[in-house]
């Protein structure tokens, strides 16, 4: 026990009826007050409210509390709230422990007696731990006033612009050879109907002109070390082979003998291995597709300004940044061959290919034709890969419904006698976009609601679409000239990103935000923020907002700061006890432990700025010299003993 005179206050929250409906809060409070060392135990409707917090603060002052236990919701929600309250009342916030009796108790149990027993056990265990807690001081960490933005789609661009305008140094990287991300493949950003490439151009133009912005294309993060305020990031940049001398004359492209499908045109056309992704591309120069290029060298001979050098090797760049914003976006769903007839005929296409067919600068010059013919009957199938299809994410992709309705209007304006059917499960044209839905209806677009996904049969020249209309409950057969699959958003390489940045994923595979409602754009890791569709499907406008939100959180962290305070829940060596075996050194994944000498004696020492606080060194230390602040052996053991009813 840290002190003979422990004075603990215990606070049980009702959370309205969320807790009190199942757990007998009065009983828990009564029980808590019977435990030695507890000087006050109270229960209250909403402990997190102003009144609730004041209750704790007043007790700390009046009753000279030196330990606080709050039994309420998950610490993920309100640990910070109560820590701050404790601190404001003048008590060291690390003498506080939170007990989760909502998510882990009242919400998951139905038996009042058993739930109450469990709550009592958990409270007793926390009291036992608090008795062993020690005051801790936050660790001061120096701050680097720069931010890395990973991904240059609309979310990344919006984040980078916000940061750069505030004067921070910004590194923005993209794994692709050009900036702009997914949006550059869209012709219609509904409901405004602006071309994607034109939409991002002013953003990119402003960004690249700023002296405090550095752009790296063809670049990926391969490792991250350090922590908030001072991350050490290693970036690999694959060679671009073409220097800034490039004048976009295009001779190289003519000379190149290799042809591959052009992903920037929805693979509807071919491009060369050396190519210009699109005319507005930044950086404004040709790029080489490494996978396709055979290094034959014909382009070198063709280049009049000697801008091409095929001997360039990849390079590694080490950056020091205070915060990181992950804006890696999404990947559109790629239907399997045969899924809704995809890949069996050129007349079943995805929504992305449709975008290219509607673009004045696309492969058909904006004429809406397929295989040289104007399609008359067009069937749209929505939610492919999000709610229906072989692999679904079960997440609504948000942008599709308004885009579908917008696209049908665009098609009708080009070919007014088209017959258009939209097969949908739900139509979600929310907000201002509702108008598009009504316009489509007025213009004769037929909306067909299904519950069972439609079937598409390709028979030679004909495509038959079978669907059961759910409102009239009748089977319908539509002979179609063109079927457009509206594909959903799937996570973009999230597994790799999650591994490198040590984050976690949602059930749908997107990168998890710290809290959907309370901490949007944050990850659980301090200093790492999340923007755009990487965190789950978003429309363009939402991504721009999310990017700005992530940036403003990074700004709040770094702007005008020389140092920040870090949680002191790190490892610490008791030099007296340390035998210098250095088992811990090998255990530490962050190289935070090194050797030092106390006189003749060799001991381990921890750098609290590098330590991330996992505690594995403490678990490994054979002499009990390595301790994990806030989770010391004696603190956890006290909890374990109290589990069986023993509180010392």
């Amino acid at each position, binding site marked *: 026990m840290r002190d003979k005179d422990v004075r603990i206050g215990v606070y049980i929250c009702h959370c309205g009826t969320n807790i009190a409906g199942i757990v007998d809060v009065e009983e828990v409070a009564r029980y808590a007050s019977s435990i030695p060392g507890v000087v006050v135990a109270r229960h209250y409707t909403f402990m997190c409210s102003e009144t609730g917090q004041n209750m704790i603060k007043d007790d700390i002052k009046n009753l000279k509390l030196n330990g606080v236990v709050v039994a309420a919701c998950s610490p*993920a929600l309100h640990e910070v709230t109560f820590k701050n309250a404790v601190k404001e009342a003048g008590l060291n916030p690390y003498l506080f422990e939170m007990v989760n009796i909502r998510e882990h108790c009242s*919400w998951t149990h139905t*038996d009042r007696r058993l739930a109450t027993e469990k709550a009592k*056990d958990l409270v007793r265990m926390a009291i036992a731990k608090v008795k062993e807690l020690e005051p801790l001081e936050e660790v001061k960490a120096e701050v680097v006033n720069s931010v890395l933005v990973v991904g240059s789609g609309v979310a990344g661009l919006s984040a980078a612009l916000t940061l750069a305008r505030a004067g921070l140094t910004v590194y923005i990287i993209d794994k692709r050879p050009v900036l702009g991300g997914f949006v550059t493949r869209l012709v219609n950003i509904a409901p405004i109907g602006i071309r994607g490439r034109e939409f991002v151009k002013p953003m990119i133009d402003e960004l690249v002109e700023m002296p405090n912005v550095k752009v790296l294309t063809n670049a990926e993060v391969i490792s991250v070390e350090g922590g908030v305020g001072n991350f050490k990031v290693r970036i690999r940049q694959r060679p671009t082979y073409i220097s800034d001398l490039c004048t976009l004359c295009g001779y190289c492209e003519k000379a190149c003998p290799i042809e591959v499908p052009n992903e920037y045109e929805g693979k509807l056309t071919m491009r060369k291995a050396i190519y210009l992704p699109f005319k507005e591309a930044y950086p404004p120069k040709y790029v080489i597709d490494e996978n396709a290029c055979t290094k034959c060298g014909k382009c070198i001979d063709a280049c009049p300004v000697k801008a091409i050098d095929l001997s360039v090797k990849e390079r590694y760049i080490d950056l020091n940044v205070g915060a990181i914003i992950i804006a890696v976006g999404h990947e559109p769903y790629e239907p399997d061959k045969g899924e809704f007839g995809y890949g069996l005929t050129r007349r079943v296409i995805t929504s992305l290919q449709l975008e290219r067919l509607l673009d004045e600068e696309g492969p058909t010059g904006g004429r809406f034709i397929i295989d040289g013919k104007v399609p008359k009957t067009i069937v749209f199938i929505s939610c492919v890969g999000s709610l229906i299809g072989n692999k679904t994410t079960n997440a609504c992709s948000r942008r599709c419904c308004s885009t579908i309705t917008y696209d049908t209007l665009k098609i009708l304006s080009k070919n007014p006698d088209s017959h258009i059917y939209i097969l949908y499960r739900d139509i979600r044209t929310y907000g201002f976009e509702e108008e598009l839905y009504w316009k489509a209806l007025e213009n004769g677009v037929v909306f067909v609601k299904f519950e069972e996904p439609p079937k598409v049969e390709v028979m030679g020249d004909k495509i038959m679409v079978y669907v059961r209309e759910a409102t009239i409950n009748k089977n319908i057969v539509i002979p179609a000239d063109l079927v457009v699959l509206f594909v959903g958003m799937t996570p973009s390489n999230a597994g790799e990103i999650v591994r490198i940045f040590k984050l*976690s994923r949602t059930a749908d595979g997107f990168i998890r935000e710290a809290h959907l409602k309370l901490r949007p754009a944050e990850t659980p890791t301090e200093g790492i923020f999340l923007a755009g569709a990487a965190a789950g499907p978003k429309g363009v406008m939402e991504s721009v907002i999310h990017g700005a939100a992530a940036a403003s959180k990074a700004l709040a962290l770094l702007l005008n700061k020389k140092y920040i305070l870090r949680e002191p829940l790190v490892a610490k060596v008791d030099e007296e006890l340390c035998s210098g075996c250095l088992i811990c050194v090998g255990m530490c994944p962050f190289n935070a432990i090194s050797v030092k000498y106390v006189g003749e004696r060799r001991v381990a020492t921890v750098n609290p700025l590098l330590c991330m606080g*996992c505690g594995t060194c403490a*678990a490994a230390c054979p002499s009990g010299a390595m301790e994990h602040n806030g989770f010391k052996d004696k603190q956890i053991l006290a909890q*374990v003993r109290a589990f069986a009813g023993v509180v010392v």
Partner: protein
Amino acid sequence: MSSEYEPKVLMFTCNWCSYAAADLAGTSRMKTPHNIRIVRVMCSGRVDPQFIMEAFAQGADGVIVSGCHPGDCHYMEGNYKALRRMLLLRKLLEQLGIEPERLRLEWISASEARKFVEITTDTVEKLRKLGPLKPRLDYVRKIMEEVVK
């Protein structure tokens, strides 16, 4: 084994995945067995075998250690260290006459509320069949004391 026997289970969860999975189970109003008491640590790699020995010595019928999936640990490799320690500890438990099944190591990610429910339910069912650990308690305590010395 009487029908009233209810096993007591102590569960160590890492802060980042398994604790959040238990939160999610609650938020989704899934029903979990009431026999589980969770001790939150930052990483499964923090779980010192002595915590588990102490839990058994104090009368826990079972212990679950749960962390992020391999490769997903917030601290990169803490769960691998937990794996090594738990494998070794299970051998030791056997030596002490404690059925090694009483110690379980699981990977439950933050989104796997369902798995959290399944693992905890299954553990309690298995322990019900195994019956209480009680009779061996003194023996364990004696050995513990020697180990600590």
